[in-house]
């Protein structure tokens, strides 16, 4: 048993709004007319396409190989024909386009022959390769490639499975745990097998009693089924946003605080989302690559709920399915705390998309006008990192980026707690995002400048060297000529003297 739970600083308790979507079971989605599968779906690199336009592909067939060690493979979500490979708008706050493979489903859903891999028999390398080849990334939203995390060669003491789901409105992990607890537990066991942790803890916020019950039962069923002797332990944790943030969950369950820029593995902890554990189980035990995920569709819609969505399904297809109610003024991807407004409804669902919310002014009132900051410190009390958001705000506002760095801007996880509580209604997170991208751009510029400086100096040095060499060559040649001339002169003089003698 886990001895005690720890607290993290700050945090907020917003209205959960989970009921709307958590009541109905996970439903399938009819095939959309076309699927747009982006090439980049992991945070450490994308895929290189291995199909060409016109190719027929089977469901689950690899259509993009992982590019480099950190790349993430992509697979055909259904059987059909590759229509085009072109730039499409992405589910990203910028709405910018990037490369995607467009697939026209043939409606037959013909699977590629699955090749399950028994974790007990396969070697570690084989398992890691399979996880990468199956395109598995963190499904909590960060899309960090799982094979890199689990492949870390550090001694792992604790494996955490994140079922906290702290953001309001989102219930996809909740439903997944209720309905597919056995697969999650099996996935957790595979992950434990890979990192050799001594204990496995599943943190679930205590506002999800059904999920806790289902997971406890599944963990109980799995008891003694393998020879590891490590059981999966289900730990209810207090409901407090952002308890589901990786670092916050690690803090709550183990008491360890992972500083910014450090990774949990170095502290003997690894944390995976329940969706990721589920995907690992499907990939190894069933040989199914990651081609779908559970997405919560909620907010101002007729039929809110959770859907099993093929990756690449355009967002408008899902909203059409759920029935948008009138009065919807924008659509959010992700939760209300950290999600973003979708610039285009043509954007596809990707591996990290967990929730779609139709927002109306009634459900999500527009923010009241921004007032000046009075440094009341409410934001500092709510910050789970213990930052001073108002200090960062003043620094960002004054464009004093050195100060922003000093006040640990890059430790900010953009959880939104500060903006949520701010009595002056300042969009604090917007200022932080602005400052962060500005600092990043500046660093890039500095790097480019020093590179240019080095290249310029190298060039000047080279040109000078060449000039010097040329001069040396010329000098040598001149000396030679002079020498030969001198020799010639001597001969001439000698000849002249000879000629003089008879006279």
């Amino acid at each position, binding site marked *: 048993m886990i001895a005690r739970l720890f607290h993290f600083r700050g945090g907020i308790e917003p209205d959960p709004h989970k009921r709307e979507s958590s009541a109905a079971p996970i439903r399938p989605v009819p095939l959309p007319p076309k699927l747009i599968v982006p090439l980049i779906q992991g945070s450490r690199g994308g895929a290189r396409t291995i199909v060409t336009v016109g190719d027929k592909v089977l469901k689950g067939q690899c259509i993009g190989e992982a590019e480099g060690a950190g790349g993430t493979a992509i697979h055909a979500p259904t059987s059909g024909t590759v229509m085009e490979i072109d730039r499409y708008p992405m589910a990203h706050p910028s709405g910018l386009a990037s490369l995607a493979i467009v697939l026209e489903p043939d409606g037959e859903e013909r699977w590629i022959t699955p090749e399950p891999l028994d974790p007990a028999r396969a070697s570690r390398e084989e398992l890691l390769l399979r996880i990468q080849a199956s395109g598995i990334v963190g499904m909590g939203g960060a899309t960090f490639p799982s094979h890199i995390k689990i492949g870390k060669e550090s001694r792992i003491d604790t494996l955490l499975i994140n079922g906290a789901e702290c953001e309001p409105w989102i219930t996809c992990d909740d439903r997944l745990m209720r309905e597919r607890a056995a697969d999650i537990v099996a996935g957790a066991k595979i992950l434990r097998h890979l990192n050799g942790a001594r204990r496995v803890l599943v943190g679930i916020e205590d506002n999800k009693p059904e999920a806790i019950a289902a997971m406890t039962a599944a963990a109980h069923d799995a008891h003694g089924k393998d020879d590891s002797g490590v059981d999966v332990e289900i730990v209810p944790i207090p409901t407090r946003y952002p308890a589901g943030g990786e670092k916050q969950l690690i803090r709550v369950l183990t008491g360890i605080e992972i*500083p*910014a820029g450090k990774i949990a593995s170095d502290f003997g902890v690894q944390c995976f989302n329940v969706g990721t554990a589920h995907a690992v189980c499907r990939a190894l035990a069933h040989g199914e690559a990651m081609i779908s995920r559970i997405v919560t569709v909620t907010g101002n819609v007729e039929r809110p709920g959770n859907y099993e969505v093929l990756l690449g399904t355009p967002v408008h297809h899902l909203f059409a399915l759920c029935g948008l109610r009138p009065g919807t003024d924008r659509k959010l991807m992700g939760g*209300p*705390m950290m999600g973003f407004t979708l610039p285009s409804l043509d954007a596809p669902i990707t591996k990290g998309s967990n929730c779609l919310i139709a927002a109306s002014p009634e459900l*999500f009132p527009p*923010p009241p006008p921004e007032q000046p900051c*009075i440094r*009341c410190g409410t934001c500092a009390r709510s910050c789970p990192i213990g930052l001073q958001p108002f200090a960062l705000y003043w620094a960002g506002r004054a464009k004093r980026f050195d100060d922003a760095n000093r006040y640990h801007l890059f430790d900010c996880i953009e959880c939104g707690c500060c*903006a949520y509580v701010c009595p002056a209604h300042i969009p604090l997170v917007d200022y932080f995002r602005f400052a962060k991208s500005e600092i990043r751009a500046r660093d890039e510029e500095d790097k480019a400048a020093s590179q240019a400086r080095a290249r310029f100096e190298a060039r000047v040095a080279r040109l000078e060297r060449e000039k010097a060499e040329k001069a040396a060559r010329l000098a040598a040649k001149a000396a030679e000529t002079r020498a030969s001339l001198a020799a010639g002169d001597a001969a001439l003089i000698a000849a002249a003297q000879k000629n003089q003698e008879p006279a």
Partner: protein
Amino acid sequence: MSSPHIRQPASVQRIMLTVLLALLPGIAVYIWQIGAAILVNIAIASATALATEAFILKLRKRPLAITLGDGSALVTAWLIALALPCIVPWWLTVLAVLAAIAGAKHLYGGIGQNPFNPAMIAYCSMIVAYPAIMSQWPAPGHTDFAAQFHLILGGSRDIDGITGATALDAMRTGLRNHANVDAILASGTFGFAGGRGWEWLAVGYLLGGGILLARRIIDWRLPLGFIAGLGGTAALFWLISPERFPSPLFHLASGGAMLAAFFIVTDPVTAASTPRGKLIFAAGVGILAWIVRSFGAYPEGIAFGVLLMNICVPWIDRHTQPAIFGQQQETRP
């Protein structure tokens, strides 16, 4: 629009309204013990503050409703009225509020951006400019409204008996003349702790401060730091030489100590903002207030203490940044 898409119902207006409400017990005691003239002063100060703020906002073409409605100008106005003697002529109150709202607040861009506490700028500029008027308070027990109102209208100030020195002033003058603390305290202007009537005023402010603390409008570190700074320094010297230095209780119950502890050093805009910084800031105000009270040329030192510490705030904040997530514990084996 970007995240977060939900917000807690909270507003600056609500904070300011709570502060005004918390001042009411103090004002009630003021009326009872010192004089109802304070109401006239509050009215003058409030009207001037709102008019000045409206005029400046109009001049800068800024939306009137949000800023004027946030109540911050009223808080400043009330604090000025409570800090000045209630029998100052009306024009002095107007000048003080102008200095605060136009000078200390809006020159820096309005609420939230001023480095100096506006009410204290008002108080200090007035005490520097009009030291004589600023040290005349109603004599203890003389709460006659008509007489006080006459003075506010600008009546002759030479009438003996109506005006008098405060307890702090009396103590200072006494000590300068090498009198003993106990002998000074026996002279009549004093009550059981501070100036007669003033101790009750302190209790009134304390009550209001309790409300603010309970509603989490103010951080407990600020009043605590101030009380510790002022009381602690006073206690130290009082223990060394009780004849030459009055007791910490006297210091805390006299003058504006309690008003400052809960309503002035707690101004979030101009106080230090880190947890440790708040303690240092408030304690600094207390210590400086004691120094100025004991050795300086002015009878009340809190206002100068506040301004001096305001100057130090950027420096304090910079050097008292709290440890953030992951900084407290080092790597685990």
